[in-house]
């Protein structure tokens, strides 16, 4: 069971997310009942999945959610904020239990309390009999009888699921066969058989059932396949789809199968093929009416028959396990069941792959690219025309392979954005502000690792926007603004970058207040404050130890400020900027690289070594002659477009050598944050895309080194981390160092 846990977690997460999305939509437009259907479906799937996995508490809670949603759907109760809040509460609790599967039982009291609330909303109490049977061993004797009181609904529900199960498995040919049979006046029956626990001759038993059924008609489908049955590749349940006479003696057939040893339970029900089944809930399909006239009536009859049969079995067999657990113990079915919901929405086009496997693949392709470069170099030396031809081919294919593999790692930023509508809603409710979150560009894709790490900074920015950006309703009215504050969360591609922005139409950042605060916190000096422009002042919010919130609120504050955002983004090789107009709002713009695995670098030679500098950090390259260099307080500088640019020798900066005089110095101007520095190198060697490899865990982090890469000739080259390098004491970064 446990091996299916990951699958369960992933699927359950999707269902919960779907539910959250739909609830938010529904809250906006309570008449949009299609969302209710989706929510109901999600709750139902969750119930089924958790039941199969044996997570009773989750199953019970989702069952109550489902019941409540059903009431909503039927119009018995109306959509209102309180109800949505209650449902959110339930979603949260389910999420919590899913996140703590091993301790899920510890939520017992919460679940029971919430179940009661759900059941009694809005203080109606007809839900008591809807209680589910408990799992084995829990001493609640009344429960099983409660199940028997109400098996009809559950019974048909389960058969529907099973029907669908087989339906989703039917190929076109089998469907045609079914339709044909119905046309001929034959009928389809679904026979579900469960063997006793610990049955020793599973394949024999299934074969005997098969034999018994064969006499009654034509078996057109089995679940699992006949071969799997022969090989005992099933748990305890198997099903047959049988075509037979419409007046088939169901009870007799059942008895016959039950007489086979080791059979625990048999259900026989009429089987309705997919399009017809849809007809029970939606308008009857025209085709159905035409080809198999009166089939609708048959369906009704079948439904009754099916439920009758379930009643029989339910009474015959003591309910030993919870209903859903019994529904399908077969693990393969967990998957299928969970899959149904996705199948309904769109044809399945995706495969879940472990991320570790993906990473391994990306690494291998990285190796391939490196080796390709080497082979190409060797090929050129050989000057063989045929070889060159096929090498070109190789180059093209491997390049395509590389980009194809890289796209595998790309995921839409939606994964992160998805949780924000809910968060902003809760926050604004909390703060008693009206806030609308407008999201666009959520389909923008970027590297999985980046997506995973961009979440927290965005949470921070959004919280800030709600808490400090957007004014309360009254103030907005007074200012003549729309009383509903707007926060725009946007993502788009820009070259090899993804730009994500968070923009609010709130009060904006007051540069004077920021300066004052910075002065108080001794982040800047009085003199600096005086000459500081508004934009520069606003940027002070990124300095560590700075937080504009007057008080530490639940929303933001807690001692962390925007510097956390900045650090996190810079760790991803990205940048963050802020634009703010007082009274009109602020905009935070994050620029993120598409991928972390491969970066464009400029190769430079310094001493005997070659280093790779990420293009991202480079502003320009210069050639500086010795006479242009001046010395201010032991630091070298040049004047570049009326700006004083501190110069460093890269070798010295890395501690790998000493400055040597040259006729002309190639200089790479790099920037990290607002610091700009020139590095003198021996030679500029051109741009190259490199695969980043981390240095061994055995080596402590080296400030100024982001990682290493292997060049075409097999040599290891270090990749510089410009931000880290500039923080290092031995690099002259200008004014801040002049004090030392």
């Amino acid at each position: 069971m446990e091996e299916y846990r990951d699958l369960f977690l992933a699927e359950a997460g999707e269902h919960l997310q779907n539910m959250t999305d739909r609830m938010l939509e529904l809250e906006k437009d309570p008449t949009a009942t299609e969302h209710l259907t989706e929510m109901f479906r999600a709750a139902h799937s969750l119930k089924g999945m958790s039941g199969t996995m044996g997570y009773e508490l989750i199953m019970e809670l989702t069952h109550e959610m489902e019941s409540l949603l059903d009431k909503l759907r039927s119009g018995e109760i109306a959509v209102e904020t309180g109800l949505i809040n209650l449902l959110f509460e339930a979603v949260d609790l389910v999420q919590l239990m899913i996140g703590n599967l091993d301790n899920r039982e510890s939520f017992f009291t919460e679940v029971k309390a919430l179940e009661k609330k759900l059941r009694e909303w809005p203080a109606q109490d007809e839900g008591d009999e809807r209680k589910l049977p408990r799992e084995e061993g829990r001493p609640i004797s009344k429960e099983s009888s409660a199940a028997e009181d109400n098996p009809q609904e559950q019974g048909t529900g389960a058969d529907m699921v099973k029907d669908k199960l087989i339906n989703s498995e039917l190929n076109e040919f089998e469907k045609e066969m079914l339709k044909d049979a119905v046309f001929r006046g034959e009928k389809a029956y679904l026979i579900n058989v469960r063997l006793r626990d610990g049955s020793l001759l599973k394949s024999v038993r299934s074969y005997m059932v098969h034999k018994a059924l064969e006499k009654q008609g034509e078996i057109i489908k089995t679940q699992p396949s006949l071969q799997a049955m022969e090989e005992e590749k099933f748990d305890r349940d198997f099903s047959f789809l049988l075509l037979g006479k419409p007046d088939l003696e169901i009870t007799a057939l059942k008895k016959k199968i039950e007489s086979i040893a080791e059979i625990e339970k048999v259900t026989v029900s009429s089987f309705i093929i997919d399009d017809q089944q849809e007809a029970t809930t939606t308008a009857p399909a025209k085709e159905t009416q035409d080809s198999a006239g009166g089939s609708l009536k048959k369906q009704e009859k079948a439904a009754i028959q099916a439920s009758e049969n379930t009643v029989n079995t339910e009474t015959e067999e003591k309910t030993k396990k919870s209903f859903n657990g019994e529904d399908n113990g077969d693990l393969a079915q967990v998957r299928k069941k969970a899959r149904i919901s996705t199948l309904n929405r769109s044809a399945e086009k995706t495969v879940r792959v472990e991320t570790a496997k993906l990473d391994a693949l990306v690494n291998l392709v990285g190796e391939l690219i490196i080796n390709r470069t080497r082979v190409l170099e060797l090929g050129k030396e050989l000057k063989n025309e045929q070889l060159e031809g096929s090498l070109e081919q190789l180059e093209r294919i491997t390049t395509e392979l590389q980009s194809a593999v890289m796209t595998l790692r790309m995921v839409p930023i939606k994964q992160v954005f998805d949780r924000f509508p809910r968060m902003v809603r809760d926050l604004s409710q909390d703060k008693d502000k009206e806030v609308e979150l407008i999201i666009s560009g959520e389909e923008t894709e970027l590297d999985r690792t980046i997506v995973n790490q961009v979440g927290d900074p965005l949470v921070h920015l959004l919280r800030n926007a709600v808490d400090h950006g957007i004014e309360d309703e009254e103030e907005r009215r007074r200012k003549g603004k729309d009383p509903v504050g707007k926060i725009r969360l946007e993502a788009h591609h820009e070259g090899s970058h993804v730009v994500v922005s968070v923009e609010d139409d709130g009060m904006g950042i007051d540069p004077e207040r920021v300066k004052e605060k910075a002065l108080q916190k001794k982040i800047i000096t009085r003199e600096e404050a005086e000459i500081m422009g508004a934009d520069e002042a606003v940027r002070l919010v990124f300095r560590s130890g700075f937080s504009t919130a007057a008080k530490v609120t639940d929303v933001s504050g807690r001692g962390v400020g925007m510097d956390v955002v900045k650090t996190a983004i810079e760790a991803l090789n990205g940048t963050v900027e802020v634009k703010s107009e007082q009274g009109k709002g602020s905009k935070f713009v994050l620029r993120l690289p598409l991928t972390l695995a491969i970066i464009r670098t400029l190769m430079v030679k310094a001493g005997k070594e070659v280093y790779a500098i990420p293009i991202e950090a480079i502003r320009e390259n210069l050639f500086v002659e010795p006479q242009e260099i001046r010395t201010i307080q032991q630091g070298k500088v040049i004047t570049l477009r009326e700006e004083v640019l501190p110069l460093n020798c890269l070798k010295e900066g890395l501690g790998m050598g000493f400055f040597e005089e040259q006729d002309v110095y190639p200089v790479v101007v790099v920037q990290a944050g607002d610091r700009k520095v020139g590095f003198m190198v021996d030679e500029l060697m051109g741009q190259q895309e490199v695969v980043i490899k981390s240095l061994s865990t055995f080596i402590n982090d080296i400030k100024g080194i982001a990682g290493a890469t292997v060049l075409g000739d097999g040599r290891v080259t270090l990749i510089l981390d410009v931000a880290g390098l500039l923080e290092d004491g031995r690099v002259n970064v200008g004014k801040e160092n002049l004090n030392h």
Partner: protein
Amino acid sequence: MTNKIETVSEVQMVAFKLEKEEFAVNIHQVREVLKMSRVTPLPQSANYIEGVINLRGEVIPVVDLRKRFELPVGERGEQTRIIIVEIQNSNVGLIVDSVTEVLRFSSSAIQPPPARVAGTRTDLIKGVGKVADRLLIILNLEKILTTEEVISLEEVTIDS
């Protein structure tokens, strides 16, 4: 190939030399032995870390054992080898003067480090192996490579 099943009472060791001392490391810990190749130096790291090399795409740090034990840097020649060992799930290269052979020891030939030899650090030595009249020191590489303290050769050798 006659000895396919390794008996419990026998251990295979890769023997190597440093200065005049002989050391050994369990063969299970050794990934491979390479000839000395170009090492990319790492800035701002311990002096005994020679740098990093590329081993089939993996970037592996290389430690100069001579420098680790405060020995003068010797001539690197034809005999110089890099032994790739696995320590705490990552690979590390060790530069040694030479790799001599693979030796089989019966367990009884391996003894715990003598406790009372002056200057010897027993925490850095796993044991001492005896073959004929040779004494090989089995180093505790985990300890030696993960601690930052200075270690001199005397501390890991035994004067017989």
